[in-house]
């Protein structure tokens, strides 16, 4: 039997059988160095669990709970199969589709263009246009795209100067959505700004904005078999948040965006750090 630290630790902790313990005891008695090590090991039998249990630690931030909740929900929704329309008890997606069909009438196709419908205020045509544009986005569309900070800042300047639209690009990193790019679009000569984000899992989403001087409006949600679309109006800007992410994820994102709980990644007030001019 050769003495080493782990054997001494087992001996000091009373984890050796009677015979082995006696053998170690004899060896320790003959070695001042082993005795010193054994003394140290004995002195190290401290209330570690109690000490750390009594430790006051920073509270887990609410943003962490929220973002993990969003991830978990997204994972559950991704795992849940979408059943076909049958006579069985409908699943959540199926119920939503049936409800949409009941309250809004059948989704219609007109000259190859599909329109969202709502029992409330009908959406502006540009909303339908960005929704259809977003349907063409898949993960591969953006996975290799890197945000060009200088270009994004210039684009936002142009949005302010030429489109007369006061918006920021929200930073959704905490919610695991990476900003990819901002584009200036036009629909029937009306300026539309598109900001696209890629989540760590799943397809891209888009946050679009257009000037709209009608009164502020709370969030409205629509779903079809492909996408979820949230619209709202605030401070003379109409917003659309659209994509194939689970509705709960988009709802959580829209709430944080609308309530100003996300910092601006690019702001029309200031440039990101590191840019000159």
């Amino acid at each position, binding site marked *: 039997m050769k003495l080493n*630290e*782990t054997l*001494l*630790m087992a*001996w*000091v902790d*009373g984890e050796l059988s009677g015979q082995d*313990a*006696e053998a170690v*005891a*004899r060896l*320790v*008695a003959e070695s001042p160095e082993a*005795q010193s*090590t*054994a*003394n*140290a*090991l*004995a*002195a*190290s039998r*401290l*209330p*570690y*669990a*109690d*000490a*750390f249990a*009594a*430790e006051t*630690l*920073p509270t*887990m*931030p609410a*943003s*962490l*709970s929220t*973002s*993990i*909740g969003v*991830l*978990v*929900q997204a*994972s*559950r929704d*991704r*795992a849940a199969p979408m059943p076909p329309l049958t006579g069985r008890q409908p699943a959540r997606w199926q119920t939503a589709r049936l409800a949409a069909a009941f309250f809004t009438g059948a989704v219609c196709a007109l000259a190859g263009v599909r329109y969202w419908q709502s029992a409330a205020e009908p959406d502006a045509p540009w909303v339908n246009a960005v929704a259809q544009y977003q349907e063409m986005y898949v993960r591969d569309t953006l996975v290799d795209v890197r945000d060009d900070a200088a270009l994004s800042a210039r684009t936002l300047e142009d949005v302010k100067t030429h489109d007369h639209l006061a918006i920021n690009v929200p930073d959704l990193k905490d919610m*695991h959505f990476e900003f990819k790019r901002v584009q200036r679009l036009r629909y029937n000569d009306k300026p539309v700004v598109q900001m696209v984000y890629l989540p*760590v*899992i799943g397809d891209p989403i888009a946050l679009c904005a257009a000037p709209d001087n009608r009164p502020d409006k709370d969030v409205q949600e629509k779903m079809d078999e492909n996408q979820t679309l949230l619209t709202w109006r605030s401070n003379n800007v109409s917003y659309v948040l659209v994509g194939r992410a689970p509705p709960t994820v988009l709802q959580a994102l829209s709430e944080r965006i609308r309530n100003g709980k996300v910092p601006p990644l690019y702001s029309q007030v200031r440039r990101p750090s590191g840019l000159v001019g």
Partner: protein
Amino acid sequence: MLDEELSRLIPSLLPRLWRFALRLTANRHDAEDLVQRACVRALERPHQLQEGTSALSWLFSIMYSIWISEIRARKVRAVNAADWQDDMLENLPDPRAGDPENDLLHQQIIAAVGALPDPQRVVMLLVGVEGLSYREAAVALDIPIGTVMSRLARARITLGELFAISRPQRLPKGVKP
């Protein structure tokens, strides 16, 4: 483990993941980043949780792996072991004393563990604080059980030498201190 089981389990384990992340990184922002990244990775790869392994151990292993490869390199831990060691030797309380001194003992235990080299500190956190078995710690750290025990022994020797001055030694029978 199924996606759904894991997605139900993770929220309930969050407090422990948070505490472990704080102790691993000693930085609130790094801890938040670490927990998020670990949960993303776990939810992306639930099939990697092997039968017989606890979800908590597995999540700890993911956190440790991410910390080692992505987060630890961001900063150097600002611990001066020599200064801390001298202060501790002057102020060691009798562990049999009342609560205020017990609190001080607890604080010094935490500081002493925090000053250990990372390989020993992490083993102490997993085994001594989180209560993992040697085998579970070995799986979490992807090292042999013998290495876990060796690191633990060295950590305890360091800690014991610091605390030995004020504590009477009680060795197993047959050996006089």
